[in-house]
């Protein structure tokens, strides 16, 4: 039983809770980076160094910055007069609580039959790179095409078209 796990897990969950509970949207985005950092530390704890650093680069470095840009471009940091929660927030909360109850029960019920740790694992960047360009090369190409398409699509969608201009 590793002691480090609990503070890291508490950090991730607290960051997630703050990201959905805080009133100011910019504070939510900053709390989101804390949750992402906690998750990256959990990945490192699971001997997944590459995924942990990819998480830091992609999520803290790119996605969180993107979210902050979107908040500033839409002036979303102003707290609305009629509250930050939707009209149907009770049913949303009930659905989320139900999902957590089902997932938690399923995990606790199957805790006995879950596999145990199998020694130390070495997943070096070299092995991952070899796997990416050998066995998973088709998936890599598809992801590359998807990222290109998504970037071009996001630019086209967000480009400002003046009225009357073709």
């Amino acid at each position: 039983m590793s002691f480090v796990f609990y503070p890291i897990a508490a950090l991730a969950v607290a960051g997630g809770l703050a990201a959905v509970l805080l009133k100011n949207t910019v504070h939510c985005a900053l709390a989101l980076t804390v949750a992402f950092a906690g998750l990256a530390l959990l990945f490192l704890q699971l001997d997944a160094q590459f995924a942990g650093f990819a998480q830091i680069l992609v999520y803290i470095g790119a996605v969180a910055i993107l979210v902050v840009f979107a908040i500033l471009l839409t002036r979303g940091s102003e707290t609305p007069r009629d509250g930050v929660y939707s009209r149907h927030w009770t049913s949303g909360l009930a659905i989320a609580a139900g999902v957590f109850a089902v997932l938690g029960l399923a995990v606790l019920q199957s805790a006995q039959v879950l596999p145990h740790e199998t020694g130390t694992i070495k997943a070096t960047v070299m092995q991952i790179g070899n796997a990416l360009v050998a066995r998973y090369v088709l998936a890599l190409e598809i992801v590359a095409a998807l990222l290109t398409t998504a970037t071009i699509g996001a630019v086209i969608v967000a480009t400002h078209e003046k009225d009357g201009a073709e």
Partner: protein
Amino acid sequence: MTPLSSYLLVAALLFAVGLAGSLTRRNAILVLIGIELMLNAANLNLIAFWRYGPHPEALTGMMFAIFSIAVAAAEAAVGLGLVIHVHRHAHTTDLDAMNRMKG
């Protein structure tokens, strides 16, 4: 070593927090933040099952998580672009105020 069920419980909790956020918040950007949290919880499950699974040297769960991170980044870019476009059109990111499909 921490048992696998602890990681699964943390992932379930994060997923529920993200789901609650995306279902209860008014602001479209906060809904996207909730979706990102849910995707990350799924990634944590993938990595945890890879670490504790019978054949971790095959790297399957790790690859799945890496591709999932890439797809989530694309999703965030497109989603935030859509939010900016809708804000320019409707002058709000309040989802309760966006109740028409027609522009």
